[in-house]
C-alpha cells in the first residue's frame, strides 16, 4: 500500500471498528467505503482532491480491505480500471475529485461506454448549497457524462449512498455492461445517517437481459443447417457472456469457419483450426473477402462497427444475416438482419447447438485456406520473418509469442502497434487481448496494462505501445514504480504517428503533416523511474531482450527501434467494400 503508511490501525482493531459501527450512525464518506467493501471492490484506482477528501480519509482507515492505487493522472486511473475490468471480468472502480478530476475521467468513460466495460466512477462534488454557483472546482459532471454513461446520478444526501452505490454496481455489470458515474456532494460525505447495505438485484424499469425466444433459435438453426457457405463473426459479447465454450462447441459441431472482431480476439484460441483470424479494416484477407461470399453470416455478440463492415451498401449483401446479441438496440442498427436472436449468447448458443448439423462443404473451407496462403506469402511471412535490415513490428510480436507461448495478456495502444498486435499476437486464453476498440484512445495502453496486471496477477501482461501513444500517458510509469506493478512494456518506436503517416502516404500523397516525432531518450526516462529498460535496434539483440523482459520478476521496458515507414496491410480503405481489401 503506497499512499499512507503512518499510524495504520492493526487489522483486528479495524475490524472491531467496523463491526461496532454497523449499528451506529456513520458519515457518508464511511458509507462510501463500506459500500465498496460490500461490493467486493478491494482494488480501486484514483486521485484525491478537495471535494473527495472525506472519502480518502476513510480509505486511510481500511487499507487492509481496499487497495487504492494512486495513479499520476485521472485518465491513467480510469484506463487502469478498464484494464482491470477487462482482464478480471469484475467491475472496475475509479475515484476522483470534482472539477478537473472529474473531467479528466471523460475520455475513459467514453471508451468504456463504447467498448461495454463495466466501471463505477465516483466523483466528489462541491457542497449541495453551492451547486450552480460556479464554486471552486464545480463542474456539472452529471450533464457532461450523460451521453457517455450507461447511468449516472448525483447524490446530495448521505442516506442515498448505499442504495445508489448498490444500483451502480448492478447496472455496470448486468446486461450489456458499461460505465456508471456517481457524483457525491461534499456535504453528503460529511452527513451522518444509519447505514445498512443491500445489494441491488432488480430495477423495475430495467431489463438487462431480453427473454430468449426459442422459436427464433429454431429458425436460426434451420437457416444454418441449410447453408452451403456459413460463416461466423464473433465479438466481445462472447467474452462478456463467458460463452467461449459455447462458441467453440458451435463452430466445431457445425464445422463453420469463424473470425473475430478486434474486441472478440482471444475468445477463440488463435491456433484453433476454424479460427480464420480477424475481420475489419486491418483484419485478415480471407475472412474479409469471404464475408462477401458466404451465404449465411452468423454474427455473435458483435455490433457491425463501420471498421468491421466497410461500406454497408456492399457488405454481405448476398448473405442471410443471423444476429445473436443481448442488446435490442444493436439489431438492425447498421446491418439489417434476417433473424435476430436476443438474449445472452451463452444461453442462446447453448440452445442452438443441439439443433445444429455438421456442414459438409469442404470446398468452402478450402476457399479460406487458399486466401490465407496468399496473405501468408505476401504479408505475414515478410512481416514476421523479414529479410530487410530494419526490425518490423511483426517480428517483435512474434518474438514475444515465442517467449510466452501465447499465454500472455497482450495489451495494445492505438495505431499501427495495435493492428500489428491484433494481427500477430497469439492467444491461447480468453480475456487476453485488451485494447481500446470503439474509441481508439491513444494513451490507453500503458495504464490499461497496469490494471490488467493487477486484475490478473497470475498472468503475464505485455503492453505494445507506439512512441506517440506512450507519451500520452507516460506519467503512469510513476504508478508502476510506486505500486510495483510487474508489467512488461514494449514501445515500438517508428518515430512517427505511424498510422496517421500510413494514411498520409496512401491518401494524401505522402504529405507528412505533423506526424514526425522527435522523441526523447525513452530508456533514460524509464530508468529515471527505477524501471529496468533496454533499447533494441538490431535483429540479433531482439530475442535476448525479449527473453530477459519475460524472465523479469519486476516491470521491464524494451524499446524497439522499428522500420519507420512500414504499413499495416491488408487494409480496407475507409468507405470501400470488405471484398476490396488491399494487400498493398
Amino acid at each position: 500500500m503506497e499512499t499512507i503508511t503512518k499510524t495504520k490501525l492493526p487489522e483486528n482493531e479495524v475490524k472491531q471498528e467496523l463491526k461496532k459501527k454497523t449499528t451506529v450512525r456513520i458519515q457518508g464518506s464511511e458509507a462510501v467505503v463500506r459500500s465498496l467493501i460490500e461490493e467486493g471492490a478491494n482494488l480501486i484506482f484514483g486521485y484525491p482532491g478537495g471535494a473527495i477528501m472525506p472519502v480518502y480519509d476513510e480509505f486511510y482507515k481500511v487499507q487492509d480491505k481496499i487497495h487504492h492505487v494512486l495513479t499520476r493522472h485521472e485518465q491513467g486511473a480510469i484506463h487502469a480500471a478498464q484494464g482491470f475490468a477487462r482482464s478480471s471480468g469484475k467491475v472496475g472502480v475509479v475515484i476522483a475529485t470534482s472539477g478537473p478530476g472529474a473531467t479528466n475521467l471523460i475520455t475513459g468513460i467514453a471508451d468504456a461506454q463504447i467498448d461495454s466495460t463495466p466501471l463505477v466512477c465516483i466523483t466528489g462534488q462541491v457542497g449541495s448549497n453551492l451547486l450552480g454557483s460556479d464554486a471552486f472546482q464545480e463542474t456539472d459532471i452529471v450533464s457532461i457524462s450523460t451521453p457517455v454513461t450507461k447511468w449516472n446520478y448525483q447524490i446530495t444526501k448521505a442516506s442515498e449512498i448505499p442504495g445508489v452505490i448498490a444500483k451502480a454496481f448492478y447496472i455496470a455489470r448486468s446486461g450489456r455492461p458499461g460505465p456508471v458515474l456517481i457524483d457525491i456532494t461534499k456535504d453528503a460525505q460529511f452527513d451522518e445517517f444509519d447505514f445498512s447495505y443491500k445489494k441491488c438485484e432488480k430495477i423495475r424499469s430495467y431489463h438487462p437481459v431480453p427473454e430468449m425466444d426459442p422459436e427464433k433459435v429454431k429458425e436460426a438453426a434451420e437457416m444454418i443447417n441449410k447453408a452451403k457457405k456459413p460463416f461466423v463473426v464473433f465479438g466481445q459479447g462472447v467474452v462478456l457472456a463467458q460463452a467461449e465454450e459455447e462458441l467453440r462447441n458451435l463452430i466445431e459441431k457445425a464445422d463453420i469457419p469463424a473470425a473475430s472482431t478486434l474486441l472478440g480476439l482471444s475468445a477463440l484460441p488463435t491456433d484453433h483450426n476454424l479460427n480464420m483470424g480477424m475481420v475489419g479494416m486491418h483484419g485478415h484477407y480471407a475472412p474479409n473477402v469471404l464475408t462477401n461470399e458466404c451465404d449465411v453470416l452468423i454474427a455473435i455478440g458483435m455490433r457491425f462497427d463501420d471498421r468491421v463492415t466497410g461500406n454497408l451498401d456492399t457488405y454481405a449483401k448476398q448473405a442471410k444475416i443471423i444476429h445473436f446479441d443481448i442488446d435490442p438496440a444493436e439489431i438492425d442498427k447498421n446491418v439489417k438482419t434476417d433473424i435476430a436472436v436476443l438474449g445472452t449468447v451463452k444461453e442462446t448458443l447453448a440452445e442452438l447447438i443441439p439443433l445444429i448439423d455438421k456442414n459438409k462443404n469442404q470446398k468452402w473451407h478450402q476457399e479460406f485456406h487458399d486466401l490465407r496462403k496468399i496473405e501468408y506469402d505476401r504479408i505475414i511471412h515478410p512481416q514476421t520473418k523479414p529479410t530487410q535490415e530494419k526490425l518490423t513490428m511483426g517480428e517483435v510480436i512474434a518474438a514475444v509469442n515465442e517467449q510466452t507461448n501465447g499465454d500472455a495478456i497482450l495489451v495494445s495502444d492505438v495505431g499501427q502497434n495495435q493492428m500489428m498486435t491484433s494481427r500477430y499476437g497469439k492467444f491461447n486464453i480468453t480475456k487476453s487481448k485488451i485494447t481500446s476498440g470503439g474509441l481508439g484512445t491513444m494513451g490507453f495502453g500503458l495504464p490499461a496494462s497496469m490494471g490488467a496486471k493487477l486484475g490478473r496477477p497470475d498472468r503475464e501482461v505485455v503492453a505494445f505501445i507506439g512512441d506517440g501513444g506512450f507519451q500520452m500517458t507516460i506519467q503512469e510509469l510513476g504508478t508502476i514504480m510506486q505500486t510495483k506493478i510487474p508489467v512488461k512494456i514494449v514501445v515500438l518506436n517508428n518515430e512517427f504517428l505511424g498510422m496517421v503517416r500510413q494514411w498520409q502516404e496512401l491518401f494524401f500523397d505522402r504529405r507528412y503533416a505533423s506526424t514526425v516525432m522527435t522523441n526523447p531518450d525513452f530508456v533514460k526516462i524509464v530508468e529515471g523511474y527505477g524501471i529496468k529498460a533496454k533499447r533494441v535496434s538490431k535483429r540479433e539483440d531482439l530475442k535476448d531482450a525479449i527473453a530477459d523482459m519475460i524472465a523479469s520478476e519486476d516491470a521491464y521496458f524494451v524499446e524497439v527501434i522499428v522500420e519507420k515507414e512500414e504499413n499495416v496491410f491488408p487494409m480496407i480503405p475507409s468507405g470501400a467494400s470488405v471484398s476490396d481489401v488491399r494487400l498493398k
Partner: protein
Amino acid sequence: MEKQLYTISVYTENNLGLLNRIATIFLKRHVNIESLTVSSTEIEHVSRFIIVANITEDEAKKIIKQIEKQIEVIKAFYHTNDEAIYLQSALFKVKSKLLFEKRQIQNIIKKSNARIVTVNPEFFVLEKSGRKEEIEELYDGLAEYGIMQFVRSGRISVTKEEMKITELLEKELV
C-alpha cells in the same frame, strides 16, 4: 425513406436528469426536436415525455430503441400523425380596443372556437386548442390586427390503438 412527423411517447420513472439523457439521444443523431412535453401520467411516479420530430421511420425505430435502453425508461412508442389523437394549446394576447374597433375580430374568434380566458381594459387573452394548422389559421387571422404575445405548447397526444400501458406497467411494477 421519407421523413414525416413522428410522435414519440416515453413512459419513465420520474427522475432528475432523464430529460437531458433523452434529449442527447436526439442531439447525437443531429435530429431537431419539434416539440416536447413532459407531464405526469395516470400512474403515480411515472412521467410521460411526448416528443415530436421530423424523421424517417427507420430513425424513429432506432431512436426508440436507444431511449428504451436508458435505465429509467419503462417503455417508448412512436406513432405517425394518423395513428394518434393529438393537439396543442396556444395563448394569444391582443389589445382590448381591437375587440370593439374591429368587428371582424369577433368573427374570427367565433369561427375559430377559441375561448376568451380573460379580458381587462388593456388586453384580452384567447386560448385555442387544436391541431397546429388550426392554431396557425387563428394566428394568421389575428396577426394583421397585431398580436401582443403568442405562445404555443408542445404536442400532447393519446393513441387511437389501445396501448395497454397500464397493464404493462402493472407487470413492471411488481
